């Protein structure tokens, strides 16, 4: 699986769609709708402006233009764009928080000592309401 660039297919949860449960795969995911539950990707997660994600996320890069609530792990980068709103616990190798973005919660660096338990096991459905 290519690790440098986010190649591969991008799946789409379109605007009028709601997924409740566990999404996993070797893909990228673009969310314009709603996802609640757990997202585990070896690719990137892109949450569009209309997207609402309430989930535990483990992905390569996470780009937020919409709303994300939960515990997220971005193994490469977490980016919150000006329209983005993040609420929760983030762990990332690098961050980019743009002006206007909302970031409320905890941010940790991936690999640092202050990092809490690594959500490495694939079976960890934790719903944050």
């Amino acid at each position, binding site marked *: 699986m290519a690790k440098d660039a986010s*190649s591969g297919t991008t799946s789409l949860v379109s605007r009028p769609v709601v997924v409740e449960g566990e999404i996993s795969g070797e893909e990228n995911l673009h969310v314009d709708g709603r996802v609640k539950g757990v997202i585990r990707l070896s690719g990137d997660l892109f949450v569009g402006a209309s997207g609402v994600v309430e989930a535990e996320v483990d992905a390569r890069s996470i780009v937020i233009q919409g709303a994300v609530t939960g515990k997220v792990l971005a193994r490469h980068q977490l980016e919150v764009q000006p329209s983005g709103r993040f609420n929760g616990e983030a762990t990332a190798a690098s961050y980019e928080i743009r002006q206007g973005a909302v970031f409320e919660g905890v941010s940790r660096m991936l690999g640092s000592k202050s990092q809490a338990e690594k959500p490495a096991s694939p079976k960890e459905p934790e719903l944050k309401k």
Partner: protein
Amino acid sequence: MGIFTKDKPEAAAPDAARSSGDTAFFGAKLSIKGKVTGSGNLIVMGKLEGEVELAGELVVAPTAVLNGEIRAVTLAVSGNVTGTLTAREKIHLEKSAVVSGRMATPRISMVDGATFNGEIEMKKPADDTPSKRSDKK
């Protein structure tokens, strides 16, 4: 809608669904366990276990494996589906379709070569959908 992969363009896989905006797409390497609801169309190429309630067209690609209770307006199946399939308008099974379980639909079509094991119930749409219907318009 910005494509965030700045360097590489999308692979030439059928994920051009993004351009139509309202067609959801679950790729071949995606696995979903849970409930998918909503409107618009959905193309599934990967695994889906659970429930689908879609006010639109559901396309099950040849590589897809679905398991559970599937409800949509129309269903076009080329892959593997086990469970209950309910369509408000029609179900179409392609040659590569392998379906086990129960189908409830007012109209059905099957291409020679499709595999179906189970029951078909053909009723008018009004009888077809019990209490759980969430039409989001």
